[in-house]
């Protein structure tokens, strides 16, 4: 009797609609949005300036760089690996581009390439670093944690070497455009972030590439047995991650109108935090861009609220950390209850 009812295709028998909806809610990555909503409501009461257009735009602008980096990191996390070097790319790629753009007197190489070529250099460098990461993991067989950690430190040093230890100012109008210009009142950086989030989200959800990524993260051997070229996919994940980190670096440089030697420092922690809060599993195979965006927004909103509430700056970092831990606990509990399949956070 029960078997009959469980046969598929019978529309009159569904699992409890509520629990089905609940599972879909969690699976799609909406877990943190109620929390976000709560914070927004709290914020509106605590700080009258919170719910203004200008402030909202401000939050979005603040998180664009983190957002792009986190989306990049997500590619790698989904297949069950890590990439710590993204932080280094955020600093190095624009710096390398900058020295090809500015005159020798300002610290550059003196080649003074046209502005848009600088963008190509930045993204190209990022892509090459990503390919190198992939090479170390797949061909050489290094543990990604160690190899990308090494790259991170290498790139931090690399920035100092190519810039001679000095920040480079005003690399070019193209950078400024991406980093600080506004179109119809919306910052270009925010548009870039949202467009990227949309594109990547669609690919992960509806494209065969995304399907293959989730499969590899869920069970790499099964993906291999099914005929997926796992090595090529792993390689591509590292490349995409680096490209997005490079783009994030370009935006940051544009916002500051300079390639700063300390650019990007610390961003990898926030990126991991945002990803985990957003429901991306460190074990691979789980996580959506919808969730990642919520994680990024959460961090942005908290920072903003603390600033508006005039909390002394000493407390901001600790409070953000506390929120991260709480949010991670909530996400993990939610994941366990929904999937029934245990994964690492």
């Amino acid at each position: 009797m029960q078997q009959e009812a469980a046969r598929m295709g019978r529309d009159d028998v569904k699992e409890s609609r509520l629990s089905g909806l609940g599972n879909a809610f969690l699976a799609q990555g909406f877990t943190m949005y109620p929390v976000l909503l709560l914070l927004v409501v709290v914020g509106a009461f605590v700080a009258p300036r919170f719910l203004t257009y200008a402030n909202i735009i401000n939050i979005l602008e603040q998180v664009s760089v983190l957002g792009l980096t986190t989306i990049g990191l997500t590619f790698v996390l989904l297949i069950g690996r890590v990439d710590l070097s993204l932080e280094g790319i955020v600093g190095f790629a624009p710096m390398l581009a900058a020295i090809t753009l500015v005159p020798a007197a300002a610290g550059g190489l003196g080649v003074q390439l046209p502005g848009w070529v600088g963008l190509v250099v930045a993204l190209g460098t990022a892509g090459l670093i990503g390919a190198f990461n992939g090479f170390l993991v797949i061909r050489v067989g290094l543990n990604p944690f160690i190899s990308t950690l090494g790259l991170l430190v290498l790139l931090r040093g690399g920035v100092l070497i190519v810039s001679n230890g000095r920040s480079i100012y005003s690399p070019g109008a193209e950078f400024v455009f991406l980093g600080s210009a506004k179109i119809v009142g919306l910052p270009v950086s925010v548009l870039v972030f949202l467009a990227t989030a949309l594109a990547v989200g669609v690919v992960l959800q509806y494209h065969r590439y995304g399907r293959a990524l989730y499969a590899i993260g869920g069970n790499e051997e099964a993906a291999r047995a099914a005929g997926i070229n796992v090595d090529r996919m792993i390689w591509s994940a590292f490349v995409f991650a680096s490209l997005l980190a490079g783009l994030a670096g370009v935006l940051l440089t544009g916002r500051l109108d300079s390639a700063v030697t300390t650019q990007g420092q610390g961003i990898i922690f926030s990126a991991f935090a945002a990803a985990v809060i957003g429901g991306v599993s460190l074990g691979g195979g789980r996580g959506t861009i919808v969730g990642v965006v919520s994680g990024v927004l959460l961090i942005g909103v908290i920072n903003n609220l603390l600033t508006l509430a005039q909390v002394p700056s000493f407390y901001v970092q600790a409070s953000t950390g506390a929120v991260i831990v709480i949010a991670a606990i909530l996400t993990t509990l939610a994941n366990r209850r929904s999937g029934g399949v245990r994964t690492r956070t």
Partner: protein
Amino acid sequence: MDMTRPIVEMREITKTFGSTRALKGVDFTVAPGEVHALLGRNGAGKSTLVSALSGFTPADSGMIRIANVEIEANGRDYSSAIRDVIAHVQQKPQLFDLLTVAENLFVESGSVRNRFGLVSHRAMHDGASRLLQEWKMNIKPESLAGELKPGSRQLLEIVKALRRGVPVIILDEPTAALGASEKHILFEHVKSLKQSGVSFVYISHHLDEVFEVADNVTVLRDGQIVAARRPVADLDVQTLANLMMGSKTTRSVRFDHGDYNARPLLKATDILISPTSPVPINFEVRPGEIVALAGPVGGGKENLAMILAGQQKPFRGEITGNGGLPRIGFVPTDRHASGYVGMLGVRENIGLGGLDVLSGDLGFIDASHETSLVRDLVGKTDVIASSVEQAVGQLSGGNQQKVVFARALVRDPQVFIALSPTRGVDVGAKEQLYGLLRDLAARGLGVVVVSDEEDEINVLANRVVIIFDERATGELTGDYRMEDLILRMEGVA
């Protein structure tokens, strides 16, 4: 043989796994200084019985006595109580790959500790060197266990057990990876330990070994004893086969859709599975036939199937088809390891079998195509789940396996290769999967099945190729008898 008290007594031993009664009230005794062979077909209960004896898998009920230790079994763990009186060498070596040979040999031994409890590496090294020399093993005590050849690993596992000085030792398929000279050394040691009163329980597929080294034989069938403590001198191969198989006539209803005049769909030419494979293998699959690869575990049948499916590269030789390789549907041997992605749903898992087939030019999955294809395959394989979105990790074993089959069918294959197609699957689903394989053959696919279950092979395959020690040692076709199948699988021509 000693007429004194038996060193091992097992009474009314039962063991049930889920709905399967693996042991149905088994009595078993072993005398001191005896080599006692335990025989039976795959699935008869031999490994379960010895695991119950050693405590590796505790029995559900019954009495077990080894030397002076007596246990009343109740499903709970009793391995610690009998640890000092019995050693169990399992089919797969349980070595610590990252420790050295010396460390593996002495890992639990008090003999290498000084009075402070500290381990003396010098003592371990010297002890290990001595043992290795005794067994004529040409390896250094400092080598890592993980680096050894399969034969050395197996021998090391045996040495470990024999060194412990326990009165009862279980050897489960001890010679699977051993060469002729290594086997000889093993038997010598077994015989000499026997002289000093040590008893052995010996499980092996190689009937010739049983005749060489065993004193008595006990035969299990379907979880029950059919012959107890028969002296080996009174037995021959034919009698043993009858005992193992039972007297029921197995006339199988096998349909043969094979088109033996057609060109082969898939051809393996001069395949050497590994550098140590003795003779090249040649193998063909024709449309409409179901051919089984049979043989003992570790003998190479699985490797050959993986090579045919393109999942593994042979050491030498090539795989060709009829003007290019055919489309191959592949069901791996362990669905949990490589068959399905537990956290993804039925739909997504099936889709993995052909993401390129399901997507358009830009690579986006065509949802309607996917839905209809999945629905079609779910219908064909009869997957039972609450919906196509249900995570495959939550389904029963049989349904999980059906999902794997469905995944293998997405590309409309011409050749279907299934390893252990119904392992861990309930009886109902088994029958359904058999029906599916027969349908595939009827539709003109070439089907290759790799299995450890003689019943399964008998019911499905028109042709059976025996793979033993990485070579093709024989072939059965047409209306072959179950008896022949079993004997071939036991290594008797």
